[in-house]
């Protein structure tokens, strides 16, 4: 009666997903649906040939922002809440390693975000169909943009979980948000360093550019809105980048959490 090691994070993940559903996290979909419904009607009224552009921009931006809010605010409480409420005591007395718990909680939130994002994407598709009455081949770029958003959320969730292992939700939110905002401007920081004549500043901006997650490359909203083709190389590169970065952050979180005394 031994459980395969890989199965344990799965058990934790399913429970974390169930928690999110029972905490009515997916109620945000009602807000999203109302917003897309209102936007579709409004855009139909003031149609000047940019309905698709407006709907895609609005829809993808909302998917990204709602996802980010969920990833950060739920992510920072993933571990903290379990320690505060002492639900972790009974769990870690079972044959569950701390890294398995972390990977499980991470996967559970990611599953929640994926389901939420998928449902919002369906809402966006419905609104798009309402204003355009048809789909185009180039609409595939919308799916790629959604995929990039998911990769971005995977990274942000990992960061939130990492901070959640050793600091309070308030501080973890500040740290995660700070890194996210810096990461969005990673390209600009690097360019700023290159135009400066100060070698120390150049060094610092270079370190920041390579150290912090580069969220700039995950923004496919503009390309999707203008039906631009997103290069396959960028899709592969982003996937690999997110995978590596998430792995490193989760390893770091495991190292920190494995040594932590639970109060």
């Amino acid at each position, binding site marked *: 009666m031994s459980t395969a090691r890989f199965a344990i994070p799965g058990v934790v993940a399913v429970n974390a997903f169930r928690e999110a559903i029972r905490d009515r996290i997916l109620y945000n979909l009602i807000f999203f649906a109302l917003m897309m419904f209102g936007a579709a009607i409004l855009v139909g009224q003031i149609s000047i040939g940019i309905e698709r552009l407006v709907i895609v921009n609005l829809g993808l931006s909302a998917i990204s922002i709602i996802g980010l809010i969920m990833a950060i605010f739920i992510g920072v409480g993933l571990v903290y809440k379990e320690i505060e409420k*002492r639900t972790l005591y009974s769990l870690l*007395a079972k*044959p569950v390693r701390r890294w398995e718990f972390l990977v499980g909680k991470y996967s559970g939130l990611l599953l929640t975000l994926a389901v939420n994002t998928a449902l919002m994407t369906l809402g966006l598709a419905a609104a798009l169909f309402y204003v355009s009455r048809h789909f185009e081949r180039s609409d595939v770029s919308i799916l790629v943009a959604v995929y990039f958003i998911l990769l971005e959320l995977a990274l942000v969730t990992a960061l939130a979980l990492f901070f959640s292992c050793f600091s309070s939700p308030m501080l973890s939110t500040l740290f995660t948000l700070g890194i996210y905002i810096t990461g969005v401007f990673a390209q600009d920081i690097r360019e700023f360093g290159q135009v400066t004549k100060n070698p120390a500043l150049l060094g610092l901006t270079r370190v920041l550019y390579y150290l912090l997650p580069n969220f700039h490359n995950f923004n496919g909203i503009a390309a999707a809105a203008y039906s631009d083709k997103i290069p396959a190389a960028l899709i592969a590169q982003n996937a690999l980048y997110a995978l590596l970065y998430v792995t490193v952050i989760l390893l770091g979180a495991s190292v920190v959490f494995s040594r932590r005394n639970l109060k």
Partner: protein
Amino acid sequence: MGTPAIDIQGLTKDFPLGFWRQRQRRSLDNLTLQVEEGEVFGFLGPNGAGKTTTLKLLMGLIFPTAGTARIRGRSIDDVDMHREIGFLPEQPYFYDYLTARELLDYYARFFGFGAAERSERVKRFLERVGLAAAADVQLRKFSKGMLQRVGIAQAILHDPQVVFLDEPMSGLDPVGRREVRDIILALKQQGRTVFFSTHILTDAEMLCDRVAVLLGGKLQGVGSPGDIVSLKVQGMEILFEARDGRPLPQNLAERATRTGARYRIEVPEAELYGALELLRASEARILSVQPLRPTLEDYFFGLVDREKAAAHAVEVDAR
């Protein structure tokens, strides 16, 4: 004698204090203890004695500053050893969005039971702790006592060889307490080792083969409950009712306290038979005679006083 069920060697835990974490507070000081297979072992001490710290160390929830511990010969760092142990935390709190059945099913999954076996075990253990009727109620609607019962069920769900219970009677009504006592005795009959912390002496006296007493993080003694406190009888208590119209003997009347028709008197153990003889002569009706033992509280206060006296003596010597 084989490998002890629990073998603790010099276990010490310091917690850092203050913003810079420079100062240390010692919660557990060089604890060495062995518990044999099949024993019901009571871990006694007042609040803050270090009982929960010890249990957390054994469960791998916190890490020792010094010392080691082994459970059934396996290091406490070995997470796979957790297949052989069960743990009820103090004032347990569980995922309140789950029902009792879902929670036990969740925990059972970590032991690799198949769906049919999980279902059967969950049902059986919910019945065992008297929660069959509340199996499908969300835990957020449970009382403290009901949560304690769920906690006990999750601790023994996988038939562990060693069961650790942190204040298992806490929050339970008398019926619940008796049920928990029955569960502990049933575990003993099955040959399991039970290690439970409590600050209630009667629980320990009723259940334990041996007890350890902890105070201020230090082990004060290990032995049978009788060795620790019970044998030291402080006097005898007699409850009686006087015969209508008959006066009490003079020397007893001075010491007796009256509640309604009943009298209560405390006499030294050596004077018991003399007092009973006087009561018999006055045709009083004896209701009960029982030894007055120090409570665990008295015992602890005695230890604390001794410790204070020792500290004072050291201070005087230093001058």
